[in-house]
């Protein structure tokens, strides 16, 4: 007997759910909830109602005697049943996907309140290699499934709500290759983490091909939070974190010797009589031994110092360079409002983040605004719009690389250990002058190489702003029940302004540099979406669309010339000489694409997916500017087979796909133009550019295969997703390096192939799950093997970067002794001089130092890791949750310019102390007469001292006998056993970049719901204690963080180089969250 039943369906958080499907089990009757989440239905007692709604667990309820049945649906936490947003904003059930896609929830992202979204992803995704710089707001390298392009962009494409956004890195090429520069970060770091509902990563070409060319590197799809109809919700987050450098990632020093290159003092009278003078004009620690004697040091030359004209004890500085770093403070406040009425939804968010970095005088301020809304004009037409605006203001960002403005150039490479940082600080703040430890002369008129590091930070800082505008407007019209049409216009614009300065009084020529850049991209998408059941059991979903993309970039970089006329005035007009013409760039790119996607589903058991896209790009020659690429994929959900149903197997799925993606050329690589150097007087100069363009370029292509298996067991307590893939990028458009004997140093060609093969695994397990306690583990594993398959003609090596210290980063083929190609090498291999070997033993030269190979083109390192892993453990007890992420990188090499120079200049412990005989390494190896000259035996050879210092390197001599020649280690100018002075093989300074890091940890406590409900005002209150980069559990690079790279981009290869590396910032703090 039927009777009337009403009720309300809500989500766990209490918000109403309109559109929930209610079916009476075993019948074809049912209903849906209205805009207020209410339903009414006529049913008989004892029947079962099935409530289902996308994104929530399906729930059944037996109708009893009641007339009102309210149901609260639980969020669908199953990792395999969730709804994922795929290319162009299409929503699909994970079941239907024929490719790998991995989702990260808002909770996982924002748990430790990392202000940089990119960094917050580290360790949470399989197949994604994220390299975080240790610079404040600095750039992050995000590469999915390996480097594919030899010289082009390898960064993943970022897409917000279906709209591509810029992730440009506007650092200079010099900065990206380890030279002087500032790390301004890349633009994806402007995305507000608090505005994110989830992130879905499309890793392979099949998943991303619909985005066209730029998606060949994978896509990171950001779905922002949306308001819900008939609800209102306010979330407030407030948190503070503090950061300190992790000293295990900073230099540790020898403690016995001070400033100088040689062990003796010079003599002069600086006020207290003739006495020892520290070699203030050198920047090394190969000087005299600390013995506490009175010595005129740098401050004896500073007129304003209390030590002016005085001698001070020759001892190790009490405050070493580590004390230069301050405590960073980041305050992060955000508010988000969302909700909706019967026909509309909205959300408004604002986040403010104030950061001061560990470097003195550094700060980063972010203001992030988000708005989104939708309105159902009628049953058929819905309009929606989003606007995101961010304003980033940086001050005193990190200078990186080999750069006087990077304090680590000093601290890690050229530093006197007798100089006290605290005294340098006092000396600077006494009158804000450049009181350096490194005077050019005894009058102290100016520095020679290095400025006072505080002066550098307070006077020679950079500042910058980045305004990022991003938004879209769309209209969706339901043409029929099986087809709707969406038109969407989107805009993404950034305005960058950067200013850099060198003040009058610095060691370098005073200057002011200004960079202004304006970029915007518009996309117009027209999409037809189809969804229809063709016959019983076979359903079809399809997409037909077009995309019109136009981008515009305009920038100017100008600098003063020959110095600044008036001190402290930073304007181009303040140039001493007339300024050179600014570097002016205007780049326009247009791409038109049409695409189609059809997928057929048979009873949820088998899914076939076909897609194709054709692009036409302005960057290619007109005759060959069109390129087409297809993809095909299928899956088989074997857990849907009747014999496997209701089993321990929750879900099982096999999938396979093949896809191609075409790619256009970089802008401006077709037509030749001339460079215009600054002419002399009224005579203009023109010059051929360094790179020869190519009018015959055609599109390049990425082909990829992928197979995967997904399975979940025991009601989702345990599951995994394993994917294997192979990607080849062919016909690469690259400015291949050529000998300058061709008249150019590079030439654009259409050649070369790079291959990536790999396995990625993501798995989860909930070993314990009780009412009060649960423990969940998420594991990600990535193993990618990259290989350069071919280059260009007979060319066997393409140099990506030539770096200081005599090493290069390359894409190379493996050749045998005759120069014949015998295979491919991984991208980014490091070349330099190697050890020479005899019968597997290292050969030591006649000077006692390892003999470098004759060629500096030997392969001495491969920066690519063997594998990456991330393990997140989440433990929940009642309202307390503990979560921590361990991030692992195994293998990969780094050349350290810091060690190369720093060991040469006598900074590190290895350069001092005792040798294997117990004699100080810095003592003489050979006997000398009273005149300081070596004593010679009858044969004219030097005579070894009775107790020789120096270093005995294990190895063999040229004749194969064990090495007995001690390397001298007495003089930083030329007789040092280590580093650059020794000209040792560069291979000696290549390190293993492995690490195991406790990347994130948080403990959060949510007030019990009952208690919160009593407050009436709140829906949720939680407090968390958070930490990031807490502990480097293991690493093999002694004095630095092996992860710290130079920048994002390709020009530093796969990151196999460190110069002036920054220490890791360990941060901890708390956050309070209110929802009402």
């Amino acid at each position, binding site marked *: 007997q039927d009777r009337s039943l009403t009720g309300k369906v809500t989500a766990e958080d209490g918000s109403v759910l309109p559109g929930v499907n209610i079916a009476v089990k075993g019948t074809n009757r049912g209903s849906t909830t209205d805009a207020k989440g209410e339903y009414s239905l006529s049913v008989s007692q004892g029947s079962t109602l099935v409530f289902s709604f996308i994104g929530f667990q399906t729930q059944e309820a037996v109708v009893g005697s009641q007339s009102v049945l309210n149901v609260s649906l639980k969020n669908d936490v199953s990792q395999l049943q969730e709804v994922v947003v795929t290319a162009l904003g299409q929503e699909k059930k994970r079941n239907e996907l024929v490719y790998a896609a991995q989702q990260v929830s808002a909770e996982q992202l924002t748990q430790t309140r990392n202000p940089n979204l990119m960094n917050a992803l580290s360790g949470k995704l399989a197949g994604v290699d994220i390299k975080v710089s240790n610079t404040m707001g600095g750039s992050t390298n995000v590469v999915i499934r390996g480097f594919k392009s030899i010289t082009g962009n390898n960064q993943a494409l970022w897409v917000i709500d279906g709209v591509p956004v810029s992730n440009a890195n506007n650092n200079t090429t010099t900065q990206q290759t380890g030279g002087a520069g500032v790390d301004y970060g890349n633009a994806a770091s402007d995305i507000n983490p608090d505005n994110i509902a989830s992130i879905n990563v499309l890793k392979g070409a099949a998943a991303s091909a619909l985005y066209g060319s730029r998606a060949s590197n994978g896509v990171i799809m950001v779905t922002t939070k949306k308001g819900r109809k008939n609800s209102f919700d306010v979330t407030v987050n407030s948190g503070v974190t503090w950061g300190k450098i992790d000293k295990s990632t900073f230099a540790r020093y020898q403690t016995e010797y001070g400033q100088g290159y040689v062990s003796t003092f010079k003599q002069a009278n600086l006020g207290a009589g003739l006495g020892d003078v520290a070699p203030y004009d050198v920047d090394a620690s190969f000087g005299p031994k600390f013995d506490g004697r009175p010595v005129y040091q740098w401050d004896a030359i500073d007129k304003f110092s209390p030590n002016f004209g005085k001698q001070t004890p020759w001892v190790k500085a009490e405050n070493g360079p580590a004390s230069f770093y301050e405590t960073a403070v980041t305050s992060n406040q955000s508010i988000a409002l969302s909700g909706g009425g019967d026909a509309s939804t909205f959300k408004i968010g604002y986040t403010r983040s104030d950061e001061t970095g560990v470097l003195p005088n550094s700060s980063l301020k972010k203001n992030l605004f988000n708005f989104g809304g939708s309105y159902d004009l009628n049953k058929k037409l819905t309009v929606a719009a989003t606007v995101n605006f961010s304003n980033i203001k940086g001050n005193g960002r990190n200078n990186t690389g080999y750069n006087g403005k990077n304090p680590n150039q000093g601290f890690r490479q050229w530093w006197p250990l007798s100089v006290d940082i605290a005294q340098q600080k006092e000396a600077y703040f006494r009158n804000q002058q450049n009181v350096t430890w490194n005077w050019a002369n005894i009058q102290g008129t100016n520095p020679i190489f290095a400025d006072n590091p505080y002066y550098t930070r307070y006077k020679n800082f950079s500042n910058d702003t980045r305004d990022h505008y991003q938004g879209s407007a769309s209209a969706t019209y339901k043409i029929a029940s099986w087809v709707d049409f969406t038109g969407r216009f989107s805009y993404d614009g950034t305005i960058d302004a950067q200013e850099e300065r060198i003040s009058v009084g610095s060691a370098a020529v005073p200057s002011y540099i200004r960079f202004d850049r304006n970029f915007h991209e518009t996309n117009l998408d027209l999409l037809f979406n189809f969804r229809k059941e063709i016959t019983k059991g076979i359903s079809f979903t399809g997409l037909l669309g077009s995309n019109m993309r136009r981008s515009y970039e305009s920038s100017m970089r100008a600098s003063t010339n020959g110095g600044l006329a008036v001190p402290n005035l930073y304007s181009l007009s303040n140039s001493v000489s007339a300024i050179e013409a600014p570097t002016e760039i*205007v780049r326009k790119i247009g791409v038109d694409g049409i695409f189609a996607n059809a997928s057929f589903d048979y009873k949820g058991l088998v899914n076939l997916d076909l897609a194709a896209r054709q692009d*036409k790009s302005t960057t290619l020659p007109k005759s060959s500017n069109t390129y087409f690429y297809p993809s095909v994929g299928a899956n088989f959900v074997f857990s849907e087979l009747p014999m496997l149903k209701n089993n321990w197997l929750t879900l099982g799925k096999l999938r396979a796909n093949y896809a191609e993606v075409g790619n256009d050329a970089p802008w401006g690589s077709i037509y030749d133009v001339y460079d215009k150097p600054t002419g002399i007087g009224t005579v203009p100069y023109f010059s*051929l550019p360094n790179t020869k363009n190519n009018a015959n370029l055609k599109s390049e292509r990425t082909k990829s295969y992928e197979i995967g298996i997904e399975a979940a067991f025991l009601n989702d307590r345990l599951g995994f997703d394993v994917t294997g893939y192979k990607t080849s990028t062919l016909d690469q458009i690259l400015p291949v390096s050529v000998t300058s004997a061709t*008249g150019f140093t590079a030439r654009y060609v259409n050649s070369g192939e790079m291959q990536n093969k790999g396995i990625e695994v993501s798995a989860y397990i909930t070993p314990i799950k009780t009412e009060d306690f649960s423990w969940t583990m998420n594991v990600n594993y990535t193993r990618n093997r990259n290989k350069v398959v071919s280059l260009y003609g007979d060319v066997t090596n393409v140099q990506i970067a030539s770096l200081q210290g005599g090493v290069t980063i390359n894409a190379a083929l493996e050749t045998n002794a005759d120069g014949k190609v015998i295979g491919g090498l991984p991208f980014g291999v490091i070349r330099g001089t190697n050890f020479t070997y005899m019968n597997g033993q290292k050969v030591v030269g006649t000077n006692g130092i390892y003999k470098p190979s004759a060629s500096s083109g030997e392969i001495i390192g491969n920066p690519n890791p063997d594998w990456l892993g991330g393990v997140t453990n989440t433990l929940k007890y009642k309202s307390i949750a503990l979560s921590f992420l361990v991030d692992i990188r195994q293998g990969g090499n780094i050349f350290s310019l810091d060690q190369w120079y720093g060991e040469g200049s006598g900074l590190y412990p290895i350069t001092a102390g005792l040798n294997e005989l117990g004699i100080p390494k810095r003592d003489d190896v050979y006997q000398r007469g009273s005149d300081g000259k070596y004593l010679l035996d009858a044969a004219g050879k030097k005579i070894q001292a009775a107790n020789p210092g120096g270093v005995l390197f294990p190895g063999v001599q040229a004749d194969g006998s064990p090495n007995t020649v001690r390397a001298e280690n007495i003089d930083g100018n*030329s007789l040092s056993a280590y580093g650059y002075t020794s000209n040792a093989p560069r291979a000696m300074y290549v390190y293993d970049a492995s690490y195991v890091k406790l990347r994130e940890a948080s403990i959060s406590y949510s007030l019990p719901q009952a208690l919160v409900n009593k407050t009436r005002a709140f829906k949720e209150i939680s407090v968390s204690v958070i930490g990031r980069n807490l502990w480097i559990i293991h690493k093999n690079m002694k004095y630095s963080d092996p992860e710290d790279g130079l920048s994002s981009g390709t020009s530093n290869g796969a990151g196999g180089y460190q110069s002036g590396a920054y220490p890791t910032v360990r941060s901890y703090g708390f956050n309070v969250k209110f929802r009402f």
Partner: protein
Amino acid sequence: CVDSLDDYNVDTKKAPTVTAVTLFSNSLKGLIDALVTPNVNNNNYRLYVQQWAETTYLDEQRYNLTARAIPQALWQSLYRDVISDLTEAKKILNANTLLSAESKNNQLAQIEIVEVLAWSVLVNTFGDIPYTQAMDPLNPLPKFDDAKTVYYSLLDRLDAALLLLNTTGTGFGAGDLIYKGDIAKWRKFGNSLKLRLALVIADSDAAKAKTLIAAAAPNVFTANADKAAFPYVATPPNYNPVAQNLNPTYSTRQDYVITSVFIDPMNELNDPRRQQWFTTVGGVYKGGAYGFANTYADFSKVGTKIVDPTLEGIFMDYSEVEFSLAEAIERGLITGDAADHYNKAITASITYWGGSATDAATYIAQPKVAYATATGDYKQKIGFQKWFALYNRGWESWVEWRRLDYPKLLPPTGGSAPAGLQIPVRIIYPIVEQTLNPTNLKTASAAIGGDLASTKLWWDKF
């Protein structure tokens, strides 16, 4: 539609076409910078001929050519920045149908003379070099040509260029930064260059040298005013690279002092050029130890005239020509009074640097200077004085030292100096060529007798 967006891939901020003269002007700047710069990354010839010594960092004066990409810097600037622009300028000129034949010939000849000079620097630095297959962007692996063949080709090209010059037509005008379009002076410059290049082969092919010099000698420079020089200005980047690296306005570095090897004999001869060339320490000219660390404050450094940003850069000067004539006479290639030319050479150098004719005469009158009484044979006498006259012109001085084998220069020995140092008589091929053009490089290395700094070039017989 994309097809209508014709301007999208066009660089609207750069020139698609230019005139030949602008490329020519630029290549002059490129060539002179390469020869003049004292930057340790590019040009260390002043250290090799022991005019200067380093203070703190000793790699370069101890002939380390691999710690920095030094060979590459010269290779790249000459091939990519000088010869490529000259080649392009010729291409543009040849395509120009509106220019009169006389003018075109003059301009082609001007380009050719500079190009021959640039090639001669390459071939006399490295030995075998890519030449016939060079300058072709479509051939990324150009073969190296035999140095001697290249050199003889340059001699032919120079002769052909001289025939093209005619004073009735105009050459490059204001863009000719050397002579402002004075074709008569270009003829002198070309002939002086011919004299210089011909003397290089005097030991290996005296007959050829004789023919060439006989033709060139009557048409060479006859006064300081004839010199081929680049007019650096005070404004970066068109200032003298010595100022860029050593003038305190532009650099605080204190990398160099003058060597005692160079200053001591000048002191002994009371050389009037010292006041222009060096600073004093405690009122005297004092040189540092060559090959070892030196305290900057303790020794003479480059003088204010040398670090003047407007100091002109010299391709070739009159003094050098007179020394060459003296030598040619001694070698019997032409006839004349060697002593007279020797005296003129010294006088030209002293007066160029601001000394008076009287100063020069006094200087020459000293027995150790006077041609009749100075020590040694003609090679030693000329080599010694030419070494002074080529002060601050490291590369040219290095060629003359290799050619004349005087003055006798010794590498640093003892103390902290590594054993077995040898002053380079050749520069090794750029390291990048090992990966960019490996097979051809290997062949060339074998052909010249090893890619070493100690491998003598084909003409370096003694």
